[in-house]
């Protein structure tokens, strides 16, 4: 079993005597990001919990809306932000996430977490980083981008490849300049352009193909639609980036976040506990098996 999350302690021991009991958090503000996507900024109503809660880039929370249920949402905010608000960028497509969409500032949701493994930060220090993501795959990587910005000198060349279906679907558009100023090579692409679009058109792996990477010193971090992930991995391996240094965040059905309910299994792993971030070397054996 890979032990990547071992350095990350949950924010508190949890409610040992009650399964799935959340802590309440208030919606501080809601920022629309794109059609059907918005960021919910949350703060625990109990200041003590708010104080001790810490997460690492790539981890997720279970957000609970009474009467609807829970949804696994990765944190998209800066773990070290002074206001310590927890950003959750949510695409409102399911029961729970559509219910959350109806909340207003001041509304309340339950939080359990943080859960899962995180992007390996220490292990890739000194390396060039390629962050390749598509659609709603960018939010789980944004905390990593913040981390890189705070510690820019610890990393080599940093390249972001980000794709969305149309220009309207691109998230965090007003932040690309800030990232560029932090010496991050931001490459944005869309599947279909529109009248206003003068940027790149095409899928993320295609732009990866154009990238010249030094396999000896490159690490790849990827999250997005499974088909995109597959081709990003393919491109990375084709450039001889070792499988141990290609990191993937997987999506599976999650109910408990504690490796207990069984839903998120892939091979020997519980994605909620052993993942969601895996080195590709851990998945190689079955990643291309259909429907596994």
């Amino acid at each position, binding site marked *: *079993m890979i032990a990547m999350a071992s350095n990350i302690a949950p924010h508190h021991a949890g*409610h*040992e*005597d*009650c*399964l*799935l*009991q*959340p802590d*309440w958090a208030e919606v501080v503000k809601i920022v629309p990001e794109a059609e059907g996507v918005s960021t919910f900024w949350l703060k625990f*109503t109990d200041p003590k919990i708010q104080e001790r809660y810490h997460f690492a880039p790539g981890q997720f929370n279970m957000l609970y809306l*009474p*009467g*609807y*249920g*829970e949804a696994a949402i990765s944190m998209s905010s800066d773990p070290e932000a002074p206001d310590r608000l927890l950003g959750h960028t949510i*695409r409102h*497509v*399911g029961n729970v996430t559509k219910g959350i969409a109806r909340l207003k500032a001041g509304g*309340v949701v*339950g939080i359990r977490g943080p859960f899962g493994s995180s992007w390996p930060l220490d292990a890739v220090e000194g390396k060039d980083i390629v962050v390749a993501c598509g659609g709603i795959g960018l939010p789980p990587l944004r905390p990593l981008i913040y981390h890189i910005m705070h510690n820019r000198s610890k990393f080599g060349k940093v390249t972001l490849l980000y794709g969305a279906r149309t220009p309207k679907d691109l998230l965090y558009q007003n932040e690309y300049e800030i990232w560029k100023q932090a010496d991050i090579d931001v490459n944005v692409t869309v599947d279909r352009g529109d009248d206003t679009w003068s940027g790149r058109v095409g899928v993320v792996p295609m732009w990866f193909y154009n990238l010249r990477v030094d396999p000896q010193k490159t690490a790849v971090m990827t999250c997005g639609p499974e088909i995109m992930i597959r081709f990003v991995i393919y491109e990375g391996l084709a450039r001889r980036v070792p499988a141990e240094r290609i990191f993937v965040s997987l*999506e*599976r*059905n999650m*109910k*408990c976040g*504690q*490796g*207990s*309910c*069984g*839903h998120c*299994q892939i*091979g*020997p792993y*519980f994605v909620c*506990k052993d993942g969601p971030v895996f080195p590709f070397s851990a998945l190689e*054996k*079955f990643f291309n*098996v*259909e*429907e*596994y």
Partner: protein
Amino acid sequence: MFNKILNINSSVTLPRSEFDTLLASLHELGYLTVGPRAQDESIVYAKIEKLDDLPLGYTSEQGPASFRLMAGRHNRYFDAIPGAQSWKQFLFPPRTHIFSADKLERWTIQPNQKQQPRYALIGVRACELASIEIQDRAFLRTDFRDPIYRARREQLFILAVNCLHPAGTCFCVSMETGPKVRGGYDLCLTELDDVFMIEIGSELGRDVLSRCQYEPASGFVQSAVEKGLERAVGEMGRALQLDDLPSLLTDNLELKHWDTVAKRCLSCGNCTQVCPTCFCWDVSDHTDLLAQKTSRERVWDSCFNPQYSYVFGGATRPNIRSRYRQWLTHKLGAWKEQYDTFGCTGCGRCITWCPEGIDLTEEIAALREEIKT
């Protein structure tokens, strides 16, 4: 009279007439005694008050997709190999209330404070004890302990039973879980024709037994038990070759035979519901119409449920082929890496209760055969 000091691991004989005293002392200690009963043309696990509640004389004849309860076959209480139910229902209940939330000024949670029942399981076979130990590994990990399971498990009393007459779908010998009970019990009973031999497994077991009239077990009785168990080893209905597992499964996810078995499998989930080790669960909210009150419930789930792997955009395993493959490669494959044990004890329930009679011992053999050719 012999020295009445009972030692752990020592054996005594208990006259049948004293069994009710044993049950009564469990009741005195606050236990709810549950055990096998002949009911609904099957053997179920339900509340028992006295020896006569047990299925005296019954035998169950079992085969793929077949279970038949036969009455008046012998004069023993513990001889009917169980039906679809397992002890799982008492530790990991099929439906449990977890908490309620009320929208007062703010949402307020009321955890389920109900005292978890204190069960004494009467008649736990070796394979079933093994399955409880397998579920312990899933529910009582160092990094996560299920509070409901834990509360029930910690106060559990186990009266185990050595299995002398296995059924046609049994293969505990292959899985190295039975038929002889190997520990983890408070008391272990072996039923001879007119007497029970009881081995003491714990302080608690000793305390319960000390309230009964017993005799030391003679060498004759002990050797009769050993011979009975040896005979049972030879009477296994089935066998499963383990030496190439789990890699036989985990390295061969694309065999043609997965298609063959998928044509038979109905994806009904029976195998997972009767399996004493399957631990998957789902959770749902039940809310009032005004959405001011909600109750959160945990229910058993199954990897054969199409919704089980649902993520936005569709199920990860939309086809029966991938769902059956997930089940079998988990049970006898990935489980080993997750919990350092197989997820199978050889109890045979999944064979008996599969409406199509799919037999995992045959499926494993067929997969192995395809690899050879």
